[in-house]
């Protein structure tokens, strides 16, 4: 089976990278390929997903910028015709915002305190079989 490829990004100026790094490191441990691109604009993030031909996009937000940045990324992915990519969101995401972003097309939200294995398990299952929205 080819490696699962995950692009991970921080959006805008959000400066907390520890969670994203922990997830990145764990996904690599679990046999996935991870491309971490740091702080980027939505356009750059979507461009990287396309160039890398990734199946999964992991976004991390702890600064409160998710409601501005995530919908824009989802829209760009649709415009570029790559909306089969599974978008995962992690960080500090209030429940109401989780619901709204899942409605708009985020595949799963993993808030602070989520288990690293749960994230990796979810990705393996979703990339193999497709999966419905998950709120964690």
């Amino acid at each position, binding site marked *: 089976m080819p490696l699962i490829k995950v692009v991970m990004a921080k959006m*805008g100026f959000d*400066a907390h990278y520890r969670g994203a790094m922990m997830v990145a490191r*764990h996904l690599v441990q679990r046999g996935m390929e991870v491309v971490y691109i*740091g702080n980027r604009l939505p356009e750059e993030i979507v461009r990287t997903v396309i160039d890398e031909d990734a199946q999964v996009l992991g976004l991390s937000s702890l600064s*409160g910028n998710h409601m501005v940045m995530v919908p824009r990324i989802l829209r760009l992915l649709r415009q570029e015709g790559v909306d089969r990519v599974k978008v995962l969101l992690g960080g500090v995401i209030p429940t*109401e915002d989780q619901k709204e972003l899942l409605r708009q097309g985020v595949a799963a939200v993993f808030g602070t305190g989520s288990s690293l294995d749960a994230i990796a398990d979810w990705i393996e299952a979703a990339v193999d079989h497709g999966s419905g929205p998950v709120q964690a």
Partner: protein
Amino acid sequence: MPTDASDALGSTSKDYRTTSGIPVKSVYSPDDIRDFEPLRDLGNPGEPPYTRGVHRDMYRGRLWTIRQLAGFGTPEETNGRFRLLLDQGATGINCVFDFVTNRGFSSDHPLAEGDVGQGGVAIDCLGDIVRLFDGIPIDDVSVSLVLSNPVGAGSIFATYLAMAQQRGIPWEKLRGTLQNDFLMETVVLTAPNILEPSFSFRLSVDVVEFCTQHLPQWNPISFAGYNYREAGADAVQEAALVIAHALAVADEMVRRGHPIDSFASRLSSFFTADNDLFEEVAKYRAARRVYYRLFQERFSPKDPRSSRLRFHVQTSGSALTAQQPLNNITRASYHALAAVLGGAQSLHVSAYDEALCLPSEAAALTALRTQQVLVHETGVTRTADPLAGSYYVEHLTDEMERRILAYLEEIDALGGLVRAVESGWVHRELMGTSYDREIAITSGEKKVVGVNCFTDDVPLQIELFQFPSALEQQRATLEELRLRRDQDAVDRALGRLREAVEGDENTMPHLIAAVQAGASIGECCDIFRALHGGWHQPLL
């Protein structure tokens, strides 16, 4: 569900250890502190080696400063929160800035759209800082400006100094603290276009040097152990990195020709208070002792204050959970107790909703009340260093000291802290510790109440704090600034700043002149980035 006490703090029944890995016995006796000499290792409170605290009668003489963080949205909104906290009994200001501001970018930068006013207040220019401190008696109350990154710390501090001048307050009267920590910029946090570590370090020392000459009551730098810990460090690494950083700044100031006693008493530190109560207390005590001994050994100061470690504590944010958020009030209370038993000079208690949103008014006030309960109800302020002489605590303090010294030797062997950062060693160290801890939580080996045990939902909702975006107002502020300023004067001032950077001059006087001429903070910091930016942070 675990009911056995052996499940606590990541220990198994066979292997009890503190969070940073120090083995713990079931009981301690005089045998465990046989090498311990009270006179040499403790002294009296307020006397070398300061293990017992930096003041003779500690909190009887001077209570710690109750300094709750505040900062969100526009300068006006944050000004309102300052007033509320001061009205309710806070005794210091602790202002946090959004990431855009903290990194010295303008609010209308394309990357900034989702972050303006999030996680801190948005500041773009002198006018903003005037509104932020409107009506706040800055000649009377001490003001901590949580400007983490040297890239922006100098420029924003320059607006603060210009504002004080406008209000007719002499700089000598200003009391407060800047964070101004190059590890924040290069290791702890991430951002677009990061400065080279050696240049970020240079900017931080520019501020130290400037304050030494002009602001005798200001702490120009605060070594942010709290944040090293949030980025993954354990208690030993936290304390060791703080001390390594203090030594590096002192070395550089001496190299620039400043006698140790002219600046060392204004160096300050910032620690976390995390879950492992006794280890945290031992950390503060050991850190004071190591700091004293190394400053004496390396710099031979005459002024006893030069080798005294003074510090602010913020109770851990990363130990708080999104699940069952009211449990966080309990956690933060224990954290705050550790800080006070460890002799902190100043304290922020984290809000119970921190893992979910910016602190609401209710959460911010509960955190303030937690401090007031500690002061007025528990009796912990009655006597200095109440845990001194405990076999366990003295043993832990000794062990912590040994481990801190060993870690400092490693850093020295790498060529000092700046080199250790450039090589990626510090990043790897923190990531390694952090990942091990995450795996321990994921595997259930380390218990977190409400997260991997006792997870049944407590039927209680908390109200999340929401506020309008600050972006429109900041955009308008910048537009107006650009319209009404004398562009030639701004260009000239920025030109002189650029020359100072290129010519190894202290940047502070030029930053003050630039913001007074009407330059935005973003424009000043763009010069730093143009000349010394683009560093690749060695993260993966």
